[in-house]
């Protein structure tokens, strides 16, 4: 018993270190933006095929998300959390189309280190059909998980 009592200060010291370490603020190493993950498929073969050239920008925005990017698979399409819909001009291999998303938005806590982000529930996806054949919704909930949400056949 005496030996146990003699070890109390050491144990208290180790516990204090443990406590101090547990209170040290951490850094955020997680993805914090919930984008629509769009995978491209060739409608003629049905096989996943990234476009040779992809340009994407939001209507009303003066900056591009992708600018003549090659071999993008999947494309990450950000939604506007302050609105219930948003539209993009998408140029696949030099041919323009417009793609529109309707969705609802809700707040999600990622972690103490990363804070909050917005998740979305996808209601509908519409597009013109110059090069796009069809758009198939695979997963309506837009999160930070790396799972495809829509398939774009072109």
């Amino acid at each position, binding site marked *: *018993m005496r030996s*146990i*009592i003699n070890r*109390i200060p050491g*144990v*208290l010291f180790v*516990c*204090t270190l*443990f*406590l101090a370490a*547990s*209170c040290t*603020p951490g850094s955020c190493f997680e993805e*914090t*933006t919930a*984008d629509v993950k769009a995978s491209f498929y060739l409608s003629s073969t049905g096989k996943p095929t990234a476009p040779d050239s992809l340009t994407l920008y*939001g209507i009303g*925005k003066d*900056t591009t*998300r992708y600018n003549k990017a090659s071999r993008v698979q999947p494309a990450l399409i*950000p*939604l*506007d*959390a*302050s609105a219930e819909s*948003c539209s993009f001009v998408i140029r696949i291999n030099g041919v323009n189309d417009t793609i529109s998303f309707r969705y609802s938005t*809700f*707040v*999600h*806590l990622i972690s*103490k280190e990363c*804070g*909050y*982000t*917005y*998740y979305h529930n996808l209601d509908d996806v519409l597009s013109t059909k110059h090069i796009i054949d069809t758009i198939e919704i695979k997963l309506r909930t837009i999160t930070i998980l790396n799972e495809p949400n829509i398939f774009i056949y072109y």
Partner: protein
Amino acid sequence: MSRTSLFITNLLLFILLSAACSVVQGQNRREIQDSVDIPLKIRAGIDVTGPAIWFAGKNILNAEGYISADINEKIALFVGTGYSDYKYSQYNYEYFSRGFFFKAGVDLNILQPEVSTGRYWAGVGIRYGLSSFTSGTPSFTHENYWGITSSSLESDKSWGHYVELSPGFRAELFKNFSIGWSLSLRKLLYPGTRSDIRPLWFPGYGSGGSVSAGVCYYLSWNIPYKKIRVAIKQEEPEEPPDEEDIQNQGINTNSQSLGGNRPATRFR
């Protein structure tokens, strides 16, 4: 004649020594205790970790106290309560959580009665915790391709609950005054809010993950209210094997006799 007197003298010495030995053995037998008095106590204690962290400027106030009452030398009933006030802010959000918590359960002492003697405790506490708290996010910002979005989450009153295992140690430093520490390993049962905006801090529980851990150092005042006598389990000395058994065991006898008569090791 001299041989006869020498024989008688030796016989007398043998009888005297045998008698003395038997007397000493009898005394030893009487000195071994077969029971011990254990004072049962009611304890009131406070955790000093919470105030220490508060003074260190961590923006976390956690004030906690408890009362426990011995049922017997092994089991004590435990009730605890406390208040927690937590604030956190970083570059993209601010958060607060404050409220009361209540814990109830049992403390199990694993020390033998002759070791604990009512003064030492080493064991584990098993508790159920209930927390009532208000949490909110006064502001947060999020930035993506479309720009920066600022918003807030209104404060919300919630209930949550959890279970806790608290292995630890306590020793009576002065008469009726104990110090001790314990680890707290907790499992969240229900966070009180929907999973997308679960609380970052849970009064009595800590960080709002599915499990949490902490350390408590506590001071307690003990009030003895009853004394009980507890029997001490005596170890049965192993009987030496019969000669017949030894002959039957044959060649293995030597190796077994090396440790065969050692008393069993006891946990202390």
